[in-house]
């Protein structure tokens, strides 16, 4: 039987900050080249989210104006179902604003607190100055090629609670908060990062890891993915900026 992965793209019409779409292209490509049928469904405001339909859920970043439009739908309307998907070990990839909204709250720099979903124990405090620039991390959950490349652009400082692990360690850039050297978060199968845009295309090992996890949860057993060349990605990785002090 052909393997299938169904991805739910939450609020693609609102959360689509620079290049989030590239992550889905990467999943489609590396699943497709292995003969896995990969389908994408968009679910936005006012549309039903049924966690049992999907193996993966993608939540991108958005501009403030857009995040304000969807927050109520995300927290109050779909919130219970999204938490249910987390409890069922569905694979999530949450980027930047999506990462923040999965957490407990976002405190604006004037002290005003915006309640978020609370699906994982992280919280964010907004500051005036932004962390902007190319980033390099090392990610221990990956078996090989565990150097990750990204680009961050955020004013929120995110802190991780006890049951939540960082996705990676910062080699250059600021990461979650510019203080503790952590980047992103992992809780159950929820993977979060501040790296937006072309995160997965540049990091094929991460792409493969997410595909593998999605299949494992679906089948309830360990999965070994068919080997797949990454010469194109490796060529690009060699040309990426290396750590330089900014």
């Amino acid at each position: 039987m052909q393997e299938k992965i169904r991805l739910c793209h939450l609020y693609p019409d609102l959360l689509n900050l620079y290049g989030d779409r590239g992550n889905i292209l990467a999943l489609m490509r590396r699943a497709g080249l292995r003969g896995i049928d990969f389908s994408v469904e968009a679910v936005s405001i006012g549309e039903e989210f049924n966690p049992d339909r999907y193996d993966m859920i993608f939540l991108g970043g958005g501009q403030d104006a857009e995040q304000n439009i969807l927050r109520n739908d995300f927290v109050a309307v779909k919130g219970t179902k999204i938490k249910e998907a987390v409890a069922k070990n569905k694979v999530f990839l949450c980027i930047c604003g999506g990462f923040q909204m999965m957490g407990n709250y976002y405190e604006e720099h004037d002290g005003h607190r915006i309640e978020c979903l609370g699906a994982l124990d992280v919280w964010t405090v907004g500051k005036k100055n932004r962390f902007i620039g190319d980033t390099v991390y090392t990610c221990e959950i990956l078996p090989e090629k565990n150097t990750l490349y990204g680009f961050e652009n955020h004013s929120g400082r995110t802190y991780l609670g006890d049951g939540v692990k960082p996705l990676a360690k910062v080699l250059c850039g600021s990461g979650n908060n510019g203080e503790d050297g952590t980047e992103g978060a992992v809780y159950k199968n929820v993977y979060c990062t501040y790296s937006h845009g072309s995160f997965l295309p540049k990091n094929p090992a991460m792409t493969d890891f997410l595909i593998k996890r999605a299949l494992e949860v679906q089948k309830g057993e360990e999965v070994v993915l068919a080997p797949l060349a990454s010469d194109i990605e490796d060529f690009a990785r060699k040309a990426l900026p290396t750590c330089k002090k900014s």
Partner: protein
Amino acid sequence: MMNVRAGAAILAARGISRGLRLLGRGATTLPGRAAIRICPQIISLLAKDQHVIVLTGTNGKTTTTHMVSGILDSLGFVVVTNVSGANLATGIATTLVEGIRIGRRARKTGQKTIYVIEADEAAFAKVCGPLHPMVCVVTNLFRDQLDRYGELAHTQAFIAKGLDDTDAQILLNADDSLVAALERGREERVTFFGMDKESMARNIVTKAAKSALGETTADASYCSFCQTKYEYRARSFGHLGDFYCPSCGYGRSEPTFSVSYNTDINDADESDKDRKEKTPGPSDVGFPVTLTYRGESITVGLPIPGLHNFYNTVAAVAACVALGEKVREPSLSFGKVSMGVELVRPAFGRMEKIKIGSKSLCLLLVKNPVGLERALSFVSQASDADGMYLLLNSNDADGRDVSWIWDVDFESRTYPEKVFVSGERYGDMYLRLAYAGIDKDRMQARPMEDCGSLVDEALAECGDGKCLYILPNYTAMLALREILVKRYHLKDFWK
């Protein structure tokens, strides 16, 4: 009346200009910077009592500024304009200082002087008031360098602030919901320009839907006033179209200045090569478009090709006519202005064709997702295309974040067989193209230091009579231009 401080500022700016020219360098921002430091009101003092048009927006402002200048020039006016995108306060101050002498000479020959000023969207809030414009044009608001400008809503607020510091006639793009929303509270001063809605309905936008990935550039999909999702009766490109809000009823206004066309345009994949070679399309110079104003219609050949230039053309005509009405200038009638359109030539880095032996190069500056989509659409339809060369840099002026290339719909078009890639971020661009399905055997990707020799290789593979299309972003274009001038012994073709 000029005060002593202003006089000193002007002298300082002129001195610096002269010095820089002696050193063989362009003088676009330093003289203005010195002038502002000596006399912070210099822009206001120099612009007062002049005829000023100010243009802003994320895409097409340089081209539109250039078109306005070209039209006015062809009608016998003397134009003072900021060239080469020197569109911050410093560049504008430099231009105004230069304008003093140009204006004086014009008076001797009995000509009138008009200032046509392009302003950066963020700078617009500060410079618009001091410029005392008679006419302001807002071309569009697309996503552009988020790390520099922040969100589109901020850009919109900057422009609103600038507009409120003047009593100028305001020309807004009717088809851009973010721009059109600036009408609220300024109704009496606003005139709309836009695309005829029947023409829009002919433009078959098929892209995005194909890949099940949703829209590629979904700026402004929700109503500016009530946050309900807009619906569209027709679209031209990006978020431009005949939009309306099903909840509060806000929607596109009928433009007073409109542009229409008669041919069906398939903006997406252009796989039918026969059709492409026979019928002129929007990628050809001289493609006929009809401009309409108060019941009068005039058909002109598109001076600079590309669907987006339909908008730039109608905006430029509207700006000239609006100024003419404001100052009661009969030579700026709609009829005369429209005839001036065909005399306009491309602005630097925008659709320039340069002959190199039996082949040519064409430079298309691309800065943001919509700009790149327009350029890709153009290249995929150009009948003489034999090679495409993309260059991507990530300096401050480009925006340091290159993730935007992933928002561009590369997937639904066909390109010339050979594709070349360079720039400081050649790895990112190569990956994007490969993920869009361009086979790696069709691509050559080299670091920025080899970008010149890659032009040689690309030209060697380009057929006689054909054209190599080069799509650089801003600093890549500046660097490449210099290399091209040296390599092929060209004159300064960007003047």
